[in-house]
């Protein structure tokens, strides 16, 4: 049972409001990702849920009970920190066993749980090692193991993969997703990486300056962003945002079209320009083409595409995939 509800939660530091007002509900077993640029308040929100920061006003409700005034350990939550926060003077075994020792567990029970968690995370042969002797991925697994043994109502992840290299990040992402599928425990995951958000989340909460811009499934946010910020934040490469005459022709202040919805051709198209950059990824080709009167347009083409820097490209946006935004940046229906 790990349903968490934030009711009118606000947070200020010395008079500076960092979270104006947040109402959010996370169902039991859900994988919710808080995503947003640096300084948007996503880590602060996570820390308010964890109890590491006090709310200025509002309530944090866990499984129907008001947990606002409870200490972190009393909330039944477990947290995995960005820096892993392992105890450097303790072995892996003692790190994982620490929360069970603090809870006053029987040594035999502690031993069983620690070894079970170590086996799940492929850490059995490292139980006598200290954190300093482990790689980044192994340390991250120890941090997760320390959270798992507590059998919490919910897991809180604060950018756990940001210190890992790209390849390891992909592997760990899959491991965390598999962990969620096997444990079926609520997970709240903070990241600034929208690819992590899109691939892992049941629901994404997009934050900006402490405000919730939009909440929805990854595809909801991708297909129907509520405003310019969400449209530009979700999706990689970023959505092409166009103002001026081209936007006015569509009856909007700004129009947006994702690079994957722009068809590229060497023969004919609505827009023409000279390729400034062509990124050949093998699986995709991303063309950066400045179009006169429109602006810099990115087009993503599947597979290898023959165009190179300096060559003429013709681009055609899919008219059914054009998003229209008004003067306030909100999506027009």
């Amino acid at each position, binding site marked *: 049972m790990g349903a968490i509800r934030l009711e009118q939660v606000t947070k200020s530091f010395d008079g500076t409001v960092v979270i104006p007002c947040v109402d959010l509900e996370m169902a039991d077993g859900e994988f919710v990702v808080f995503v947003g640029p640096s300084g948007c308040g996503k880590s602060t929100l996570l820390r308010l849920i*964890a109890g*590491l920061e006090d709310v200025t006003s509002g309530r944090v409700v866990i499984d129907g009970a008001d947990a606002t005034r409870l*200490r*972190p*350990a009393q909330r039944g*939550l*477990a*947290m995995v*920190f*960005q*820096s892993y*926060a*392992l*105890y*450097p*003077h303790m072995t892996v075994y003692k790190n994982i066993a*620490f*929360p069970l020792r*603090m*809870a006053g567990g029987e040594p035999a029970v502690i031993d069983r749980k620690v070894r079970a968690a170590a086996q799940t995370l492929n850490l059995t042969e490292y139980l006598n090692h200290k954190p300093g002797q482990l790689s980044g991925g192994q340390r991250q697994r120890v941090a997760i193991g*320390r959270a798992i043994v*507590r059998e919490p109502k919910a897991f809180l992840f604060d950018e756990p993969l940001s210190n890992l290299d790209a390849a390891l990040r992909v592997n760990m992402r899959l491991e965390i997703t598999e962990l969620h599928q096997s444990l079926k425990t609520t997970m709240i995951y903070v990241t600034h990486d929208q690819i992590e958000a899109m691939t892992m989340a049941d629901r994404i909460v997009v934050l900006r300056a402490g405000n919730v811009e939009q909440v929805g499934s990854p595809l909801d946010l991708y297909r129907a962003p509520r405003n310019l910020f969400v449209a530009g934040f979700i999706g990689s490469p970023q959505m092409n945002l166009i103002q001026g005459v081209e936007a006015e022709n569509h009856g909007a202040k700004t129009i947006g079209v994702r690079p994957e919805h722009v068809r590229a051709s060497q023969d004919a198209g609505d827009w023409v320009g000279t390729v400034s950059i062509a990124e050949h990824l093998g699986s995709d080709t991303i063309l950066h083409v400045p179009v006169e009167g429109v602006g810099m347009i990115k087009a993503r083409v599947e597979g290898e595409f023959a165009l190179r820097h300096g060559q003429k490209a013709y681009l055609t946006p899919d008219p059914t995939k054009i998003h229209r935004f008004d003067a306030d940046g909100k999506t027009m229906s």
Partner: protein
Amino acid sequence: MWMLSTKMMPPVGVLVPIYLLFRDWGLLNTLTGLTGLMMLVNLPIVVWMLYTYFKEIPPDILEAARMDGARLFNEIAHVLAPLAVPGIASTMLLNIILAWNEAFWTLNLSAASAAPLSAFIASYSSPEGLFWAKLSAASTMAIAPILILGWFSQRQLVRGLTFGAVK
């Protein structure tokens, strides 16, 4: 770090008030008085060294302990203290050396009963002349323990003094 600034002050500037306080409290020529004074005189350095050491301990670790159910006592006993042992050890070493070598206060506030080694060595310099042999022997006895202690603990000493100086 205003506390550290008190260490910059010449001790002779406060000799008279300290002497009068010791006299009025019956602490002159007592081990209690000298011990208390040594503690207070070196307190700024202790605070400064331990402050720089504790500052380097990541706050994340303490928060993780809190999440794991540790109360304040457990945080200190199981997390903070074990991590701080090298810093405490190097601070202790430096203060042993400073107290061992202290001569100004010991000469002025002690006589026969509470005179440590530094005052004892100074007593060989008398109006009758310098007793070179005894002076040399006493000086060697005074230097030797600190030299040996410092030799074996030099790494910890340097680490403690420079910890936090470079990221």
